């Protein structure tokens, strides 16, 4: 035990040390925020002059002033539509199973550990899975269908985790009330649990989709195509997506294509930002309702 006097003796030094540390901690936070600010500034600075109707409505071209994102935008819409169609039922179904039906046994634990690990698998590995399984073995070719199935597997853990949280938040009394009225398990799930959990589930789905829109690596492994001058007409057509088109422009040596890439990034970020804003809006509305 130190005597109080030795405490006082060092107090000044300890306080100075504390202040130095505080400055360091604060500047760390500032570094992160500054990084974000510089990144956004660089993209706006490089890309704003390239934002034009041509960028949205034209097909890609060898001439930067005529090149546009049309094929990539339609490809992204196709990919997202199909991905949502696969992910939502399977993800919500898995979450319902784990929260409402599963008993504490080895299978449940295996599924839970497995989902946690899947969330840590690099996205390019999912691309290899899709390339082997969907493109080759199930002979879907380099189609938007193969891309969407791959993307679904990639974002499934996000939807499952978010839906589980939302279902867990439904008060037990709701279920008990429904059971007391003679409802079966499935009726309780369908008419009580799912409706009250739906804002949280929806938030999870939007977040998963915004992750999927920005994913590039797995789609490159599946599609490989970066120069496409048509719009997919059916799920077995070839496709390209926004981040792949942006990557293609970044990879070109000409300065103008770099600017075009920055313009494409602005479009991509605007889409992502609106999706995230929607998710935040839903979450806030939902939280307010549950407080009332």
């Amino acid at each position, binding site marked *: 035990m130190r005597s109080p006097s030795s405490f006082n003796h060092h107090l000044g030094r300890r306080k100075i040390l504390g202040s130095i540390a505080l400055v360091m901690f604060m500047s760390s936070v500032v570094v992160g*925020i500054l990084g974000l600010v510089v990144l956004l500034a660089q993209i706006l600075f490089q890309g704003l002059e390239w934002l034009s109707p041509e960028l949205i409505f034209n097909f890609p071209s060898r001439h930067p002033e005529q090149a546009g994102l049309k094929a990539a935008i339609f490809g992204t819409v196709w990919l997202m539509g199909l991905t949502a169609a696969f992910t939502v039922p399977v993800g919500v179904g898995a979450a319902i199973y784990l929260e409402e039906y599963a008993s504490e046994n080895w299978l449940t634990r295996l599924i839970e550990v497995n989902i946690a*690990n899947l969330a840590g698998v690099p996205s390019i590995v999912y691309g290899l899975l899709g390339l082997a399984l969907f493109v080759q073995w199930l002979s879907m070719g380099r189609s938007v269908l193969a891309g969407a199935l791959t993307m679904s597997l990639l974002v499934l853990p996000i939807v499952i985790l978010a839906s589980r949280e939302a279902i867990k938040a439904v008060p037990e009394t709701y279920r008990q009330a429904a059971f007391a009225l003679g409802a079966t398990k499935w009726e309780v799930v369908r008419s009580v649990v799912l409706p009250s959990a739906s804002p949280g589930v929806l938030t999870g789905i939007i977040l998963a989709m915004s992750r999927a829109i920005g994913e590039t690596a797995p789609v*490159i492994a599946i599609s490989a195509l970066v120069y496409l001058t048509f719009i997919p007409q059916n799920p077995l057509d070839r496709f390209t997506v926004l981040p792949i088109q942006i990557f293609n422009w970044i990879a070109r040596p000409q300065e103008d294509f770099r600017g075009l890439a920055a313009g494409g990034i602005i479009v991509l970020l605007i889409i992502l930002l609106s999706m995230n804003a929607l998710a935040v809006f839903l979450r806030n509305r939902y939280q307010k309702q549950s407080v009332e």
Partner: protein
Amino acid sequence: MSDPTTDDGEPRFRRRSKTWEGGAVKWLFLACALVSILTTVGILVSLVINAWGFFTEIPIWDYLFGTRWSPILKPRDYGVLPLVSGTLLVTLIGALVAVPIGLASAIFLSEYAPDRLRRIIKPVLEILGGIPTVVYGYFALTWVTPQIQKILPDLLVFNALSAGLVLGLMIIPMVSSLSEDAMLAVPRSLKQAAYALGATRLEVSISIVVPAALSGVIAACIIGISRAIGETMLVTIAAGATPKLTLNPLESIQTMTAYIVQLSLGETPHGSLEFNTIFAVGLLLFFMTLVMNVGGHYVVRRWGLRYE
């Protein structure tokens, strides 16, 4: 327990059909949950089968310990070490940025920042985690590299240094938010006891909060680093496409993930030896990240202190 309504015909029939319906629904939901297990099995099977095609021609020993990677240009060599060293070099630079900054931010947010400031800073940092990785690649190539070139004129256009620095920026929010969660879970009574003994805020943070949250903090770092190992587009764009066994961050290198993208973009025929290399590289990558992730979860389970 007898239910009077089941004694007359129709309700009993309805009840039975409901029971049947309930069973079918349960199995359907179980099938959904099993998709996740099938995904893991699918990943392993697809990687192993295609990598098998590679390992029948190239001995696994030559692959794992060979020091030259040139699967397309002659003379061909299939030693994966240059790709592994490229991955580890970029990851190391990223970790040197993200771990100190992420931890310091977490300490600031959990121990120093008033609640209102926290509620502003946290979402801003989370935006960093939501930006697509092509965007980070663009940033590294068009801003970070030219800035560093002003100080280090030797720096190549494609280099491990700027890719690693931006990779660090990218995983800061992951490290900081996971460790902050662990720090916030440290019971207030422990901190109050330290304050009552006359400790300063820094002393409480460093000698009470961080040790008490250590398992969560380590797990956060491991998971962040594992994410860095698997990161693809940023390093494809900014770190280069020249597999090289080097620790010099100023040089152009190639990571395992960037190689997979490079070969996917080419016109390699499916089933050829060149094509199967990406599965051999993917298998190794999968195991590296798996070990990290399992390690991260293990640290939390084994050493995680639970305060009730």
